[in-house]
């Protein structure tokens, strides 16, 4: 297989491009996911959240995007795994005895570790929420004559466990660091580096990486402490 397209995508730059594009898609997904989750903070007994969850799990279009999303996560993970192995190999068999961290930020050097933490969290929380919703038995509630699965109660259940809340908050921290580097980095990889827009990209990227994980983390905290 030596056509131009495969050569493009398997080159170091091509793989980086895929990392950036999948990463940016996942960033978009975070926004959608967060806007849904924030409904948990509404004081309506989980009604709007449940309606939203029902819609998300039954709508054909959303389901297609969701499958795409899974594919992208998988691609992002597998590519990063591949790149990490390749990059380690490029370093050679003998490693430096002393390395100084002064020339780059910590998050940028530890994207693999941060990504793994985020991945573990994704698996755990998929099992508890997505898995329950799609393959488990979630109790139903009746809203204006319509049977809707009560995912909010499942969330309530998990968010009352202290270890779960701690894991959630910790993972959002990892996500924050992952985004701290990843957001801006994706633009650089796409070649979008221009003095006129760098400030904006930097500001949005850094703000996003703090605000979005913080809001995600706030939900279990608020529910745990009943704020």
């Amino acid at each position, binding site marked *: 297989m030596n056509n*131009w397209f495969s*050569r*493009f995508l398997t*080159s*170091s*730059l*091509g*793989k*980086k*491009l895929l990392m950036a594009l999948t990463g940016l898609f996942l960033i978009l997904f975070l926004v959608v996911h967060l806007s849904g989750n924030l409904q948990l903070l509404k004081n309506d007994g989980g009604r709007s959240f449940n309606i939203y969850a029902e819609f998300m799990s039954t709508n054909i279009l959303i389901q297609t995007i969701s499958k795409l999303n899974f594919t992208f996560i998988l691609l992002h993970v597998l590519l990063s795994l591949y*790149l990490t192995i*390749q*990059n380690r*190999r*490029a*370093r*050679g*068999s*003998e*490693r*430096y*005895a*002393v*390395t*100084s961290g*002064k*020339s*780059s*930020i910590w998050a*940028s*050097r530890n*994207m693999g570790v941060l990504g793994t933490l985020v991945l573990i969290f994704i698996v755990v929380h998929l099992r508890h929420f997505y898995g329950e919703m799609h393959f488990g038995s979630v109790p139903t509630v009746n809203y204006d004559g319509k049977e809707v699965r009560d995912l909010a109660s499942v969330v309530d259940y998990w968010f009352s466990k202290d270890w779960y809340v701690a894991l959630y908050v910790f993972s959002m921290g990892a996500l924050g660091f992952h985004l701290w*580097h990843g957001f*801006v*980095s994706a633009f*650089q*990889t*796409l*070649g*979008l*580096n221009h*003095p006129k827009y760098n400030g904006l990209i930097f500001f949005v990227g850094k703000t996003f990486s703090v605000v979005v994980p913080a809001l995600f983390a706030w939900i279990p905290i608020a529910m745990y402490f009943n704020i």
Partner: protein
Amino acid sequence: MKLTLKIWRQKGPHVKGEFKTYVHEHVSPDMSFLEMLDVLNTELIKKGEEPIHFDHDCREGICGMCSLYINGRPHGPLQTTTCQLHMRSFKDGETITIEPWRAKPFPVIKDLVVDRSAFDRIQQSGGYISVNTGGAPDANEIPIPKKIADEAMDAATCIGCGACVAACKNASAMLFVAAKVSQLALLPQGHPERKERVERMVAQMDAEGFGACTNTRACEAECPKGISVAHIARMNREYYTAMLSSYELPSKAGGE
């Protein structure tokens, strides 16, 4: 000044190396880092021991030959070349660890000397404009905006020392390759070949076994000439455009 030096010693390319510790008692703050090693070497020779081999030539920061990884940083604590680093940047009694560049495409030849011919092969794959001697039009025929010329010059200041590779946790050569791609992409003279050039140079870079860029920007922070990662972004753009739109494709990607 008195210093303790932990220096990588390796007899040859296929011999296992190890750190050896030397106590250096005759260090003056006015010495350059390489002169400090010269003095140590004289002492070693007097004792009948083999001197420490390290690459150096111009000793004024431009030839790009010197290449020491000092206390975990290429060219040491300042953003300069090793030959321009002076001992006043260190404290009396300090322990300094000196290692060669570490990267698979830069195998150690001896002690602190590494083989950087991979860089030459990347340049050979496309880092030029194909004009024969004699056929050039008048130098002022194509005006080039000052800012473009300046930015091309920023990229062109690369001395090919390999600090970017040494600094990068992925041993990526993107900054080195991007510097040339960017210089020739900016200048109108480089335009006829810009697509083929970036395709070939990236292919060669990959074939040499350099890692991929993860945008840590360590290269930019350690580059003795301060070359910006903005050039990497430009190379990325050039590459995507080339791959998606070039007519001619290299018949053979990669080198030996």
